[in-house]
């Protein structure tokens, strides 16, 4: 289980936003959005804030930290 998990896929689906649209708003590649959604890559704090802003939710609604998870 990864240490940082996220709800990006669900939040994005609610807004009918594509991965490419989110990537363009955040300023990353679509492949990076895919990696974040699959919990394979933990973004920097700056990118995490940008994702939360793009999805219109607070950071903690987008990302959660599990201290027992793998870093």
């Amino acid at each position, binding site marked *: 289980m990864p240490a940082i998990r996220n709800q990006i896929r669900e939040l994005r689906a609610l807004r009918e936003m594509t991965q490419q649209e989110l990537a363009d708003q955040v*300023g*990353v*590649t679509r*492949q*990076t959005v895919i*990696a974040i959604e*699959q919990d*394979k*890559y933990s973004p920097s704090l700056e990118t995490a804030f940008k994702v939360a802003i793009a999805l219109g939710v607070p950071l903690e609604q987008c990302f959660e930290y599990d201290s027992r998870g793998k870093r």
Partner: protein
Amino acid sequence: MLTSLSYREKTLYASLAAELVVYGPYFFLHQQNSVNKVAGMIIAIIVLQIILQSVIAALTRNRITDERDRLIELRGYRAGYLALASLMVIGLSMLWFHAAVGHLRLDSRMVGLHFLSVFFGMLVVADITKTATQIVAYRKAV
């Protein structure tokens, strides 16, 4: 498949292909090495890289790179450095061993070419290690 790759990933595949095409014969064809041959390969790899990278840049609309690309790039350079440092120790040990047992005469005129071949080979392997590590990191999505 190509459309699912990011710009950086496409450039890495092109780099790896160019490296294997140009450097492959150096390792797998047992020909007489020479300074001119090494210089020719360096020129060939530069020309091939310029052509391939230009084509990829022209065919790719979205050419942005982000923090994940930079992280993967750093991992590649770390792997390349470790490969280079390890090969340097092994290569120098082998040169010393061959000189010690008499297979290689350090005062011979060919010794410069031996050193050139060994060090060039190390650089090539380190470069391929760097590129391959980056491709693996992209495929693992890390």
